[in-house]
């Protein structure tokens, strides 16, 4: 009846997961109770859960990402403290638990933390920057988000029902085959990643179609903001690479559930085929994350330097160069496979060459600042910290790309330090830069400046104190994923690293405090103009927060940096463009199909994990029935009357008049 599921799946004998689960469940129940008591359900259901508005979906993606980042950070704290106390000692985490933690940390940080945040930024920004009202497939967008959330939910469920994988964030066979890992841990991994992968693919298709087919009038390719270019490149990679992950995990699933021999070490299975396939996804995945991050930095550098981006066309070319070459470097993750000198040489050279594209970008950002009026506000601090951090990470990356050197550093802490150097320095810094930069656009008020700067400095210093020792440890010969350590001479470096984690915790506290303080002081921090940073692209032409239809009248773009051109013209002529004629707007209606599908997909995933076959079948049928019911609906769009459009846009124009007056007064100053 319940497959492999029984009460013994709840980890009553392990205090850490048990206590964590109880706290998580209590917090979740508390939030639900609060929503119920305050009668927020109708609002949440109408405005958020069933919303097909790309901005709302983007915000929900970011919220999911932040929650999962905190979960992943908790795992990181446990790993670093375990290694610091387990020097010639067992430490406080037994091996089977420690192995789950490093697996969960990697899986969560990449797939459920960074990915939702990057997808969230793309969803929120791309239509606004392209001057259109929504993405190509709004309802599918909602389905994609809820599927991602469903995957994240399954990962967290593994904390208190059963266990998570102990195989590392990429479950290499034959260890991940049933013969060696019979428990449900790998199955949780497989179904959670598979479900959220479908969600990611939906966003990929959506953004590619939006960028290529839905730009406003006059927005030719070489007028698009660089963020849109990087979003396009990233989503092309999603479309090309995520199916490889889907296929690979499906093969592993067939091996585990039906005893097939794709990757087994018996009967002609080929474990190295898994490693090749999974990295053919895994390496592009790194660029799926980092390319939009480069886009965020590009926007920040040009806005806070008061200059157009230096070398816009070379930036576009470098983005597409990276997009293509990123598919040709996967083997550098396992030079030690023994593919021979010729193959290793090819992949060593291709991995080094990708640094050329990145180098072009770094110089473009530096030259953007050169001669500009640089404002050192929080987003700019994160961006400048990024340049420093990412260059070092890139250099160690080129070092690892040399096969003979890689044979010495393979699987060492040096590698761990390197990829944290580029992913934290590249992606996480970008996420925080973008968060500080676009928060006023999304919510209508700025974030507190002082706490933001404190958070940056704690994170920046904390990052280096945490990870520099890991480089040293790697060169001393320490391999990754050690549950305990037998070399006391490594202990000073491990202690320094833990101290770094302490500084990072202060950074997280500052970040949370900043949000709380900013919400408290929101009236003082209100952004009435819609253009708080003197922005250059079209999202700053809308009020903060933008109305659900984004633009009352679709913009007509006449040059690069669309909004900057409009603003200059207004300042020169001392007036806004004449009031347009308002016409009714068609917008898609909300739909519960996303949460409905995700609910049954979660049930399906859970029952597959626990081998509850009948329930899995029921869930599949229910999900299909939901789609058919959705396909049967008659009303797909509703009309926003012209008067409503005019009312919203006149308010925006009034705010713009005030902004124009302020700008003109500034112009008059010496």
């Amino acid at each position, binding site marked *: 009846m319940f497959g492999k599921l029984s009460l013994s799946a709840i980890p009553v004998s392990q205090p850490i997961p048990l206590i964590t689960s109880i706290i998580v469940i209590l917090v979740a129940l508390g939030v639900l109770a609060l929503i119920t008591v305050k009668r927020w359900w109708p609002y949440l259901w109408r405005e958020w859960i069933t919303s097909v508005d790309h901005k709302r979906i983007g915000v929900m993606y970011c919220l999911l990402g932040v929650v999962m980042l905190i979960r992943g950070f908790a795992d990181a704290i446990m790993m670093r403290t375990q290694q610091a106390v387990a020097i010639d000692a067992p430490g406080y985490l037994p091996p089977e638990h420690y192995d789950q933690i490093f697996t969960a940390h990697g899986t969560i940080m990449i797939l459920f933390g960074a990915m939702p945040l990057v997808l969230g930024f793309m969803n929120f920004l791309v239509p606004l920057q392209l001057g*259109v009202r929504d993405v*190509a*497939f709004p309802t599918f967008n909602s389905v994609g988000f809820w599927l991602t959330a469903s995957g994240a939910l399954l990962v967290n469920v593994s904390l208190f029902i059963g266990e998570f994988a102990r195989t590392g964030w990429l479950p290499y066979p034959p260890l991940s085959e049933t013969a060696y890992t019979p428990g449900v841990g790998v199955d949780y991994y497989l179904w959670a990643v598979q479900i959220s992968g479908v969600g990611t*693919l939906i966003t*990929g*298709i*959506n953004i*590619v*179609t939006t960028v*290529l*087919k*839905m*730009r*406003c*009038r*006059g*927005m*030719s*390719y070489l*007028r698009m903001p660089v963020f849109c270019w990087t979003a396009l490149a990233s989503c092309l990679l999603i*479309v*090309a*690479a*995520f*199916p*490889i992950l*889907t*296929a*690979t995990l499906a*093969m592993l699933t*067939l*091996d585990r559930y*039906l*005893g*097939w*021999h*794709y990757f*087994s070490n*018996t*009967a*002609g*299975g*080929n474990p190295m*085929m898994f490693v090749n*396939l999974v990295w053919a996804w895994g390496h592009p995945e790194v660029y799926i994350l980092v390319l939009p991050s480069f886009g965020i930095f590009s926007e920040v550098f040009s806005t806070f330097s008061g200059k157009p981006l230096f070398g816009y066309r070379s930036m576009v070319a470098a983005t597409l160069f990276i997009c293509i070459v990123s598919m040709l470097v996967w083997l550098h993750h396992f030079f030690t496979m023994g593919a021979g000198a010729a193959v290793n040489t090819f992949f060593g050279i291709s991995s080094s060459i990708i640094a050329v594209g990145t180098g072009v970008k770094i110089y473009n950002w530096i030259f953007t600042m050169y001669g500009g009026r640089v404002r050192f506000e929080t987003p700019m601090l994160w961006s400048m910290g990024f340049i420093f951090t990412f260059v070092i990470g890139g250099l160690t990356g080129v070092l690892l790309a040399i096969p003979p050197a890689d044979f010495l550093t393979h699987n060492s802490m040096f590698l761990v330090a390197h990829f944290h150097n580029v992913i934290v320095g590249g992606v996480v810094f970008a996420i925080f830069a973008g968060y500080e930069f676009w928060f006023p656009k999304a919510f209508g008020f700025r974030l507190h400046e002082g706490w933001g700067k404190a958070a940056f400095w704690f994170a920046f210093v904390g990052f280096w104190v945490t990870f520099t020792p890991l480089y040293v440890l790697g060169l001393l010969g320490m391999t990754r994923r050690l549950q305990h350590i037998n070399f006391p001479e490594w202990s000073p470096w491990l202690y320094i690293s833990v101290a770094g984690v302490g500084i990072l915790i202060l950074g997280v506290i500052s970040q949370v405090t900043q949000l709380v303080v900013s919400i408290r002081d929101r009236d003082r921090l209100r952004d009435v103009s819609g253009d708080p940073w003197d922005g250059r692209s079209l999202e700053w032409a809308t009020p903060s927060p933008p109305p659900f239809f984004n633009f009352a009248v*679709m913009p007509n773009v006449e040059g690069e940096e669309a909004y900057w051109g409009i603003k200059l013209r207004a300042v020169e002529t001392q007036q806004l463009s004449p009031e347009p004629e308002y016409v009714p707007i068609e917008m898609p209606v909300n739909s519960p199909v996303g949460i409905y599908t995700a609910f049954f997909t979660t049930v399906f995933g859970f029952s597959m994990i626990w081998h509850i076959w009948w329930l899995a079948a029921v869930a599949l049928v229910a999900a*299909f029935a939901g789609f*058919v019911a959705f*396909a*049967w609906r008659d009303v*797909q769009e509703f009309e926003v009357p012209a008067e409503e459009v005019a009312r919203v846009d006149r308010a925006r124009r009034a705010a713009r008049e005030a902004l124009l007056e302020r700008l003109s007064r500034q112009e008059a100053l010496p």
Partner: protein
Amino acid sequence: MTYTGLPASVEAIRRVRQDPHRLGHRAHGPGEPVEGTGHGGTGPASKRIIVGYGFWIFLLSDIVIFACFFAAFAVQRGATAGGPTIGEIVDIRRVGFETAALLLSSYTCMLSFAATNARNRLWTEIFLLLTGLLGLVFVALELWEFVELAGRGITPQRSGMLTSFFGLVGLHGLHVTLGGLWLATMMAQVLLKGFRREIIHRLICFNLFWHALDIVWIGIFTIVYLMGSGA
């Protein structure tokens, strides 16, 4: 642009035919970009183009999935673990019938869309039904093949080669089965709702899907069966 009553895509194709090297692309006047195709100068594309385009992108991603299963088959083709080789399991006659059924179904599928373009509900339904029946013949023949092989003890659990064989062929069969489910839903929609805009868009997508499955099958027929029967 003068309104011709045709979809924007038709207009765009006409322009390209008249000016194959796109010489007029930059100039104004007659070379102006077509309204509704989503090119820079003209604003967002029409819904029809957006839906078709997005579905193409999805199909590309689906073909990447097939590519992985093809790659696995290429890697594991010789990994028989002492069991039967690919040459011993291929029954080229039956696969010939399967292929004929599937290719014919692509033809009827195209005819159904010709009927859709003429807004003829009866013929659309008839040709969709024929497409579905031919798909059913295909799936039935494939199932028969699998059952017969299993009867001889030839199962995916036997060897790496058989795993990748059943995986690749089965994945295609699963696609055809799901396509059949979709087809039945579309027939019901055409019957009950007629040729509404969104239903025509779905029929476009279904056509693309069904033809893509044909293309993939050509690959499977060649690489797995034809090259296998010679092995």
